[in-house]
């Protein structure tokens, strides 16, 4: 069954253990110029997850508060990257993770443009680069464990489990406690994702993209692709018809022309 992770932003203290665990498990390089925590942190080829600190004014008193947002691939139910990949290098597994297969990748980077959350990153400094992003530890999940980041979270901000159970927990939590915003980010975004977020401050203030379509992104292009064979066949038939018609017309014109010539000669 499909797994999911719930991120409760109210519980995150910004320790960064998850990002460290990710680096260790996936053998990713630490870079001085690209921190995994703090205001300046962001995803890149070696940062598959980061914990971003956001300073916001909250409530009627406008007091400044800190919130921490863990970013990583959201593992869409119907991933745009997988549908956009013409060599099937991205595949959604039945466990939930959207996994990248480097041997198939051509390196066109259409996945990076297609992703509604701008997650896939590229190894720009390499001669033969790969696309890189969180894989949701598919081998750990296969072995019955949880992803490395969720395993180490000391505050319970990350809950791993079956997708429907995790979603139910999210609903319960936001309904029970009035401090929560009544929105589960990832429930409907891009047609639903395997990572879900709940928060006590509006998601747009935390840097989430809130104008994401609720349709699965692949639908937009798959509709066009499904039309293609029909359009191709009709147009092909039409072209052949036109060609044959015009050739026949020319032949007739030629025949008549030569007939007239012959008639003249006879006369």
């Amino acid at each position, binding site marked *: 069954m499909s797994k999911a992770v719930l991120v409760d932003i109210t519980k995150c203290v910004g320790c960064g253990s998850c990002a460290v665990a990710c680096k260790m498990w996936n053998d990713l390089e630490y870079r001085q110029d690209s921190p995994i925590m703090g205001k300046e942190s962001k995803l890149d080829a070696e940062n598959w997850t980061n914990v971003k600190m956001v300073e916001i004014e909250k409530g009627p008193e406008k007091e400044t508060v800190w919130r921490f947002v863990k970013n990583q691939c959201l593992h869409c139910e119907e991933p745009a990257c997988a549908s956009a990949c013409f060599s099937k290098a991205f595949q959604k597994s039945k466990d939930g993770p959207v996994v990248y297969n480097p041997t198939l990748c051509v390196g066109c980077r259409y996945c990076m443009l297609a992703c509604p959350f701008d997650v896939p990153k590229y190894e720009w400094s390499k001669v033969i680069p790969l696309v890189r992003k969180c894989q949701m530890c598919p081998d750990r999940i296969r072995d019955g464990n949880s992803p490395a980041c969720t395993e180490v979270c000391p505050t319970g901000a990350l809950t791993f489990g079956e997708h429907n159970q995790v979603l139910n927990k999210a609903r319960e939590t936001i309904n029970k406690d009035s401090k929560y915003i009544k929105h589960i980010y990832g429930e409907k975004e891009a047609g639903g994702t395997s990572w879900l977020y709940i928060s006590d401050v509006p998601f747009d203030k935390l840097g989430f993209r809130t104008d994401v379509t609720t349709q699965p992104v692949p639908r*937009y292009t798959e509709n066009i692709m499904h039309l293609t064979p029909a359009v191709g066949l009709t147009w092909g038939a039409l*072209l052949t018809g036109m060609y044959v018609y015009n050739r026949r017309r020319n032949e007739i014109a030629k025949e008549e022309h030569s007939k007239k010539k012959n008639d003249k000669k006879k006369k």
Partner: protein
Amino acid sequence: MATKNWSFRMTPTRAVLIALAAIGGALMIARLVLGLGPTTNLNDQWPWGMWIGFDVLTGVALAGGGYSTCLMVNIMGIKKFAPIARAAMLTSLIGYLLVMVGLFMDIGRWFNFWRPFVSWGHTSILFEVFWCVSLYTTVQLLEFGEVATEKVGKRWHKVFKKMLPALLIIGVLLPTLHQSSLGSLYVIEIGKLYPLWWSVLLPVFFLLSSFFVGPAMVTVESLLSARATGHKPEYGVLQSLIKVSGYLMVVYLALKIIDLFYRGAAGLVFLGNLEGNMFLLEIIGGIIIPIIICFTPKLRKSKGGLAAFGILTVAGLVLNRMNVVFTGMSDYIGGSYFPSAIEWLVSIGLVAMGVLAYLFVVENFNIIPKEHHQAYEEQDAVRHSA
């Protein structure tokens, strides 16, 4: 038949083009050795840049003169356009070969270029583009076989002649599919691409514009190559050819306006922001003014008017593709991208290679009808008498 009479006249312009092509070629090798990072200004925010935006998206559209002319002359049987058919189709062939090279430069794992043929990732628009563009380039090479075997490998000429009808039909079908698909590529950018350009009709807009830019491109090219080779351009043919563009541009403009109102994006046109202004520039300069020129007989029949129509329409199309790839995406993406010197020089080098190849083929094969080919008449006369 001992001598084949190959000729390539050297002129100062051609020397410059050869130098540019050589620089481009050397830098392409550098890109393959060093990787994309050190040679381009692409980054995680701007994964697609000049090579995709200009060399591929714009290149394919500008090569659209090939299939549109082929459709009119060979399929619909409009004989009066026949004199320009071979030149238009040659430009298209060269254009596509350059697009393939440009694409090869841009993909990071170039040794995997064949994967999509096997992987069958049919949900991707890029899959359709990839198949159609590679098949169409092959078809165009075979179509050119019919021209080439008039001079070399003559015994194969009959075979090519026999294949031609099928090739011509496939050669119109495939571009129709992928010209529109290049627009479909950006349908997935829902909510990212600025609403002045994003639309489910993107494939229709890309298809229509690739068709109407064809005659404009043929016009520009005829005027340019007339200057370069000294033959007289086919004014009569060009004047009626651009009317085909004109009618299609009216349809295109009407569809654009209806689409903007339908999606409630019409208000964005006059906001005075970068996107609005670029959109206006594209529509007024690249569509409305050319339409006016086209349907004002006095302007259409003047040499200047014809040139202005061609240049404006081509520039308008280039601007449209640039707007989709860059202007329309910049507000969402943020950050900055400006092509590196190497990106510029490789693109310029590719264009130089294309122009050189065109000139070489025109000089050595029967592309432009004899009676207008004064500069080479003498040479031909000598060959025939020999």
